[in-house]
C-alpha cells in the first residue's frame, strides 16, 4: 500500500470477509425494520403530539390505535394515483421513488451493533462498512433532495413549485451547517468510517460531551434538513397548500411522507452514531446482542425530542430561517470545526 498523508485506518481492509448473502439478508431486515419504525413513528408522533395537546390521538384502529399505520397504508394504497394533466410524466412518477430510495439507502452504513459470529458466519454490525460512510450519507442525502425538487417542479403547479423552491433553498443552506457540525467528530475520531467513530466512543466519552456545540448545531440543522417543525417551511400547510407534494396523492404521496420520516430516522441514527456513542451502552455495554437495543433506545429518545420540538415551537418566518442558518449556525459550526482542529493538533 502506498503511504500517503491520509490516516491509513480509513483505508484498512475489512477485518473479516462478509458473505454476500449475509449482506442481502441483513439489508432486507434493516429495510423492513426501518419501514416498521417509520410506520410506528407516525403513530407515536400523532399520539405524543395529541397527549401534549390534551387529546387522545388515533385510538380507533386496534387497541390504543396500534393498527392505525396499517389502516393508513391500506387507505393510501386504495387511493387513485391521480396525476395532473400538465405534469411531466416520467419525472412526476420517478420523483417519489428517488426520495424513498435515497432515504432507505442511507441506513445501510449505520452501525447498530459490534458484529457477531453465529455458527461460523460473520455478521457485521452494519450492512456496508464503507470507509467514507459519513460522506456517503451526505451524498445520498443530497441526491434525495432531487426527489423533492423534481417532484415539485414536474407537478406543474405553482404551490408545488413554491414548495420545491423553498425546500431547495432551505436544504442547501442547512446542509452546509450540517456537514460542518460533523467535522469536529471526524477530526476527533480521525476517520469517516462510522464503525471507527463508534469505536472511538467506546469508553463512554461520547462526542456529545467534547462536541456539544457540534451536537446542538447538528440537531438544529438536521431539523431543518428533514423539514420538521419549527423549520417546516417547505410544507407550511398554512401558506403553501402542502409544499412540493401538493399534486401528489395515494401511495406516491405516501412515498414522499415515508421518505421524510425515514430521513428523520436516519438523521437521528446518524446523530446517535456520531454523538451518542452508537450502539454502546452508557458506561456498560452488556452482551453484544444488547448493542442494537441500546441503539434503538437512543434513537427512540432522539425521535421523541424531535416530536416534542414539533409540538412546542412555532414555525419560523422565512427570513428568520435564512438568517438563523447563515448568520448563526454556519459561523458556530465553522468555529467549532476550527477550534476542534486546533485543539486536536495542539494537544
Amino acid at each position, binding site marked *: 500500500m502506498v503511504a500517503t498523508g491520509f490516516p491509513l485506518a480509513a483505508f484498512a481492509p475489512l477485518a473479516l470477509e462478509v458473505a454476500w448473502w449475509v449482506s442481502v439478508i441483513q439489508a432486507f431486515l434493516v429495510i423492513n425494520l426501518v419501514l416498521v419504525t417509520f410506520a410506528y413513528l407516525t403513530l407515536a408522533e400523532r399520539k*405524543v403530539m395529541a*397527549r*401534549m*395537546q*390534551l*387529546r*387522545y390521538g388515533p385510538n380507533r384502529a386496534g387497541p390504543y390505535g396500534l393498527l392505525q399505520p396499517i389502516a393508513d397504508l391500506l387507505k393510501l394504497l386504495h387511493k387513485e394515483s391521480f396525476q395532473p394533466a400538465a405534469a411531466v410524466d416520467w419525472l412526476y412518477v420517478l420523483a417519489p421513488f428517488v426520495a424513498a430510495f435515497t432515504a432507505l439507502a442511507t441506513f445501510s452504513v449505520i452501525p447498530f451493533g459490534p458484529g457477531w459470529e453465529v455458527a461460523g458466519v460473520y455478521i457485521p454490525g452494519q450492512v456496508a462498512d464503507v470507509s467514507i460512510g459519513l460522506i456517503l450519507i451526505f451524498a445520498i442525502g443530497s441526491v434525495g433532495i432531487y426527489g423533492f425538487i423534481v417532484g415539485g417542479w414536474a407537478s406543474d403547479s405553482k404551490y408545488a413549485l413554491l414548495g420545491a423552491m423553498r425546500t431547495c433553498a432551505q436544504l442547501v443552506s442547512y446542509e452546509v451547517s450540517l456537514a460542518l457540525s460533523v467535522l469536529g467528530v471526524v477530526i476527533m475520531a480521525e476517520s469517516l468510517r462510522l464503525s471507527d467513530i463508534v469505536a472511538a466512543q467506546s469508553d463512554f466519552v461520547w462526542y456529545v460531551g467534547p462536541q456539544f456545540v457540534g451536537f446542538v448545531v447538528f440537531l438544529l440543522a438536521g431539523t431543518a434538513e428533514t423539514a420538521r417543525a419549527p423549520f417546516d417551511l417547505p410544507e407550511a400547510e398554512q401558506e403553501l397548500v402542502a409544499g412540493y407534494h401538493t399534486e401528489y396523492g395515494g401511495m406516491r404521496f405516501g412515498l414522499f411522507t415515508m421518505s421524510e420520516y425515514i430521513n428523520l430516522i436516519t438523521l437521528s441514527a446518524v446523530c446517535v452514531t456520531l454523538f451518542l456513542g452508537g450502539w454502546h451502552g452508557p458506561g456498560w455495554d452488556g452482551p453484544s446482542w444488547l448493542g442494537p437495543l441500546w441503539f434503538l433506545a437512543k434513537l427512540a429518545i432522539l425521535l421523541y425530542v424531535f416530536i416534542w420540538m414539533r409540538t*412546542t*415551537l412555532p414555525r419560523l418566518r422565512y427570513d428568520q430561517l435564512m438568517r438563523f442558518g447563515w448568520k448563526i449556525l454556519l459561523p458556530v459550526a465553522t468555529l467549532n470545526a476550527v477550534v476542534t482542529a486546533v485543539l486536536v493538533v495542539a494537544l
Partner: protein
Amino acid sequence: MAQPLDTFKGFAVTFRQIFRKPITQQYPDFKRAVYPRFRGRHRLHTHENGLEKCVGCSLCAAACPADCIRVVAAENTADNRVSPGERYARIYEINMSRCIFCGYCELACPFDAITLGNEFEIAEYSRDDLIYTKDMLLAEPIKRVPVQDPARYDTPAPVYKERS
C-alpha cells in the same frame, strides 16, 4: 436575551401536558348530555285528549327563515276531528336538510304545537329521509338524548313584552 430561555420554558409546558388527562370526549362512546334548552329535532304535540295542537295556521312556515316547513291545512269535520280548532294540518313536513334550528317556528306557534326537542343525531344516508312527515314529528323520537339536569342549567325562558 429572555427568548432562548422562554423557548425551554415552552418545552417544559408541553412536557407537563403529557401527564394530564386528555379533555377529549369520546363522542360515539360517550354522549355528552345536552343543555335543557338545546334546539334539536322538532316535535309536534297533542292535547291530552289526543287532538293535535296544530291548527294548520302556517305561522311557523311564515316565520321560518330557511323555508323548510310545508303546511297544508284542511277543515275539521264532525266525523274527522283532528284538532280543536276550525282547521288542522293535513300535511306537515319539515325538511331537515334545510332547517337551521333557529327555533323561530317554536316562537311563532300560537298553540305551542311545535317545539324543538333535544335530539341531534339526525344524519341519514339519503336526502329524502331528511324530510320529516307529520307522523314522524308526532311520534316519540327513537333515539333519546341525555339532558342535563334542568334545575342546574336551565335559564328562565325569555319573556317577550308587548311593545307599547
